[in-house]
């Protein structure tokens, strides 16, 4: 697989030399490949937000390097600027960053700054608004007239329209109800399939991470604690709980069954998997 983003020996210390000095990211090595869908999880203060802000040069490493396609993004100003377009960062509650007069202008803001042709901007805005399910008649409305869920879609379309090589989404489902979460989940998957963009999806939820990603990276205390497939990560569910992560209830149930001597694998995270496994166990007595 082709490497697209790499951080080498990255350390970031906030407020160095003051009483508030804090090393948020501590000697981290991490590589993302083209087209990968990575779930990045960790509890508050684990360093994941600090880490992702290095990906497009918003933060400068205290130590270590950030490379996009093998090039150090801090070697000169042009590279740093290029990194901003190569890596799209969607912050938590991105709807608070909407500012334009119309939805169209807001989504077009990024592509316009990239210096694209008018026709290309137009195509990108319309195409990506369609992906996030915004009807055409919304495009000329003020984004501030829309509902919270619709604003979130506008904000996502704005980043989609920049067609970055790597897209980092920080808790894109936060604060949405279950139906809203499912919608956002679908848009991101659809965009990923269509463009083959590398997606780094930051979440607290093991469940979302497992459903969406082929690879999960777990951060704790500024370091990478685990890196593997969902099955590999869930097999260490007890360590995840110890790191303060939200392990799905069924996984916790299976951990407890295991402690009671029932031969089950804790690497389940959906009710369907769990029910199928228990039925099989009851019928045939086979371990799952």
């Amino acid at each position: 697989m082709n490497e697209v983003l790499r951080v080498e020996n990255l350390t970031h210390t906030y407020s160095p030399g003051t009483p508030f000095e804090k090393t948020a990211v501590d000697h981290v090595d991490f590589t993302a490949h083209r087209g990968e869908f990575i779930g990045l999880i960790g509890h508050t203060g684990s360093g994941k937000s600090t880490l992702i802000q290095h990906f497009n040069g918003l933060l400068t490493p205290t130590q270590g390097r950030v490379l996009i396609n093998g090039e150090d993004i801090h070697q000169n100003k042009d590279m740093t600027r290029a990194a901003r377009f190569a890596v799209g960062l969607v912050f938590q509650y991105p709807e608070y960053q909407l500012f334009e007069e119309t939805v169209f202008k807001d989504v077009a803001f990024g592509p316009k700054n990239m210096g694209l042709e008018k026709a290309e901007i137009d195509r990108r805005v319309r195409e990506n608004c369609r992906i996030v399910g915004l009807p055409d008649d919304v495009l000329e409305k003020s984004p501030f007239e829309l509902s919270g869920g619709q604003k979130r879609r506008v904000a996502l379309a704005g980043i989609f329209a920049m067609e970055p090589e790597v897209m980092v989404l920080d808790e894109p489902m936060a604060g949405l109800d279950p139906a809203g979460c499912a919608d956002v989940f679908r848009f991101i998957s659809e965009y990923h399939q269509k463009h083959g963009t590398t997606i780094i999806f930051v979440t607290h939820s093991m469940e979302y991470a497992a459903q969406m990603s082929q690879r999960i990276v777990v951060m704790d205390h500024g370091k990478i604690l685990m890196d593997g497939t969902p099955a590999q990560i869930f097999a260490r569910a007890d360590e995840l709980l110890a790191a303060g992560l939200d392990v799905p209830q069924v996984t916790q149930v299976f951990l407890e069954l295991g402690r009671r001597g029932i031969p089950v694998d804790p690497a389940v995270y959906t009710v369907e998997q769990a029910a199928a496994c228990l039925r099989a166990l009851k019928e045939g007595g086979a371990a799952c």
Partner: protein
Amino acid sequence: MAIIETKDLTFRYEDADSDALCGVTLSIEEGSFTAILGHNGSGKSTFAKHLNAILLPSGGKVYVGGVDTADESRLFDVRKTAGMVFQNPDNQIVATVVEEDVAFACENMGLPQEEIRKRVDECLAAVGMSEYARHAPHLLSGGQKQRVAIAGVLAMRPRCIVMDEPTAMLDPSGRAEVIRAVQQLNRETGMTVILITHHMEEAALADRVIVMKQGKVALDGTPKQVFSQVDRLRELSLAAPQTVQLVHALDPAGTVLSPEALSVEECVGQLMKYLEA
């Protein structure tokens, strides 16, 4: 005794085509812990905003501590009785030092300095933020900020605290800490808690769960009564907790297993029964 009563409460936003609340009649007991669930647009936040007169009814009545919220001369009494915590802590923090932020409302209430000091320390301890008392709020994480916002409301010593998705931005440990602090307040000081949430596991800790849909109360009962209705919840586009769903999937008719398995422990108990049967 009821601390909050609504009678046939209706509300319509300006320029809206339909009512956001259509005839909600509820009574909330003093000292109880009530969770309100529902989809976005179900009216749950609109309902919450009526409880300290941020919104006033288009029709019907809301009484908080016996006071009609529509009585403008009693507005301060209503707000003193029911404190409100919102989803986004960034919109609620005003000061540049954590402890000053928590003291903000107390200062406005004109309390003596020693009393403010005492309350600020107590409330920061209650949300596990004592060690951050002298920190700058903007350097805290979202979860920590929210705990500061909650401490600021607690410092007013309201009789009732209304929380509109206070944990939506928090991580699991932050969420657990906040909910633990809220539970403790409810149990030890008898504070009435109304928690608007999307998290079933949080709602399961309440004494009473109310599910809203299209501006009406769709379900109302104890967590066990509400969450054991897996199919009904699905109709309301809500998912029962995974533990309940798992038990329901194995025994939909509930012939052998009890669907009232809200905790991991209760669920494991039911599953052991299933495997042995």
